[in-house]
């Protein structure tokens, strides 16, 4: 299998700097769509699990913070499988799950990413299964509304909308959706279902990111 030279880079959060050029088009598009807005909220999701939404979200947030010198907040809402702390090199606990349960304060859970000025991350916190309707409670909605105003760009890293429906509660708060598809893994049927879901919610679909792609033709493939 073809691998990138990034495979040898450790620790992981240092690889974000190298991933940033790969998501150039993503943060450029977000920046373009955010022209004239005070806050731009983007929900990053995927039709299937393990598509790499956390990595893409972290890399995009880092690029926005680094190249636009903007305040960027990344909110990890995937309570079952937290991962963004590992990518950004911050402490993952406490996080959103703890905040929602009242075990931590908002200031306590939002952390700045070392080496990336302007990028702050709200990790998922203690890993647990999400409670049905947890994000739809007035307290959670108020929390998310507050979080949506805490950065020039606010990126919500959410699990797949098909299997974990709590992410849909965030639709009223966001401006765009970014879909991350994992090559050779995400099925066409799931992708179609998610696209229909997004279209029905009338949230503009910013675009897609094809992640973990293995080129068949090398340089001949776009």
């Amino acid at each position, binding site marked *: 299998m073809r*691998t990138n030279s990034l495979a040898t880079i450790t620790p992981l959060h240092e690889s974000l700097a190298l991933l940033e050029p790969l998501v150039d088009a993503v943060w450029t598009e977000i920046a373009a*769509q955010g022209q004239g807005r005070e*806050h731009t909220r983007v929900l990053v999701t995927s039709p299937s699990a393990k598509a*790499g939404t956390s990595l893409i979200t972290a890399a995009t947030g880092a690029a926005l913070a680094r190249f636009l010198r903007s305040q960027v907040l990344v909110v990890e809402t995937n309570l079952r499988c937290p991962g963004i702390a590992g990518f950004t090199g911050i402490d993952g606990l406490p996080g959103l799950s703890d905040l929602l349960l009242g075990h931590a304060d908002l200031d306590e859970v939002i952390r700045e990413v070392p080496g990336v000025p302007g990028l702050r991350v709200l990790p998922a916190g203690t890993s647990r299964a999400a409670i049905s309707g947890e994000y739809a409670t007035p307290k959670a909605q108020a929390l998310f509304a507050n979080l949506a105003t805490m950065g020039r760009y606010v990126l919500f890293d959410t699990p797949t909308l098909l299997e974990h429906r709590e992410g849909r509660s965030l639709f009223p708060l966001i401006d765009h959706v970014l879909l991350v598809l994992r090559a050779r*893994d995400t099925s066409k049927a799931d992708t179609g279902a998610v696209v229909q879901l997004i279209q029905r919610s009338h949230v503009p679909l910013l675009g*897609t990111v*094809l992640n973990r*792609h293995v*080129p*068949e033709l090398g340089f001949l493939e776009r």
Partner: protein
Amino acid sequence: MAPRPEPLGRHASVATRDADPLSEGGGSTPLPFDSRVVFVYGIARSRVMILGLTVLGALVGLVIGASMPNVYTSEAKLRNQASARQMITDETVMGVADDEWSRRRTAPGILDLIDLLRDPAIYERVARELGPREVLRVEDPSRSPRNAGLAGSIMHQLQGVLIRFKGLDNPCANGEGPLCQQTAVKTLLGSVEILPVKDTNLLHITYTASSPQKAQLVLNALIEGFLQHHIDVFGASGKLAELKEQFDNEHQKLTQLNNEYRAYQEECGFWDIDGDYLDAVAALRLRDANIAQLEVDGKRLSQYVTTLEGQLNGDSSALGGKALNPYWEALVKRRQEALAVIADLESRPSLVTTAQRQLEAARTERSAVEGQLLETPQFTSDPYAAALAAQNNPVIAEAQLELAKSKSNLAALADQVAEERKQKLSLEQRLKKIRECQPQHELHRATLDNAQKKFTRISQQIPELDTLALLDQEGRSNLARFREASLPFEKDGPNRTKPLGLGLFGGLVLGICFAALRQLSDRRIRYRETIEREFDLNVLCVVPEVAGLEDGRHVA
């Protein structure tokens, strides 16, 4: 919160895609699939499988090529000299082509000769002579003593194995039955090629076999078969026998037809129907002329008789059919005489007395006669008086005689006319019978004439064929060897690159089809083109696989 913008479609996005000439198709009807994904990426994805199938196809082609026996071609030439024997065809024997033009038209040409040489009967005979097993047996090149080098020896060994595996070195294992014989004939027919050499009367004949010796052997046998078959077909002996048989048949037929014709002549009553017909017509015309003449004569005689009768009867028609009274005539005569006497006497004055007396006497006589005349009718119906008057009149007697004679002639004429009419009727009946008999008579005669012609022709042909049959007895054919069957040293085939190429190409096509089907049936997303084409979504970026970046870590 900023107002939410309108949903953005892919084309409203900042990111733009490059034009895809493969998938868009340059303005023509778009394909139901992305050709780049299906073929280009498919081939790249399944390249190992495609390569494997291609190699497999090439191997199959190689094995097929190796299993094809070697091909050696022996060549020979035959010369065809058209002669009188070849001009005698079935048509000429049957009398269909009598004239020179028809003979030339039906005479066999070079193509007819080639058809003749492709007669399966020749090949059946050759297959029997050589043995079907020998004809079908494929030579094992590994047993050949020829030095073919290392590669050639390996190839020959492979060929040998395949030939033995397929049992081609020992055909007809169950015996040389009809099926084996039939297969051998088919093989012979399929391996021989007969072509005319342009602008010559030569035939170029080739035979291909699995060994040079076998090619020469079979071709020699075939040529022998060709020559024998040619003699059989164009030889005069067979046709002579046939012609003699025809001669006998035609003779019998002619005799029978003659008998039938005579019987019919007898039945109909006319031996020379044309002469009889002409004679009858002439006689009938003569009778018509005679009748017409007799009728004219009769008419004239009848008028004469009528005239005579009128003369003899005088004014009988006006006088009521009465005769002139002879007494009255005598009295008129006496009166005239008396008047003459009176006139004479009155002219002589000197003789008055005598004369006077005489005068008086004459006057008395006159008065008496006139008195009697007044009392006597001029005409009388008394037959006696009439006969007396006729006797006394020679003219009447002559007229009566003439009348009687004319009447007799008239009766004779009537009899003649009746006789002539009778004969005419007889002639007309004869003519009618002739006309009734004539069609059948002519049919008989035409049949007889045809039979006679055929018989005459056969009679003339027999001596000619007798002469030609002598050539057959000497075994001389008009088809002769011009060049003997050659012993080939170099093989002409098989073209083993063909099955190899076909196998290679077939494997490649199969692999590409497999790759395309694999792409079309893929239910996962693999390429950005899939996202763009099937979901009409923008692909902002493609992030490559980074080993170790996500595996074993916390990955969302």
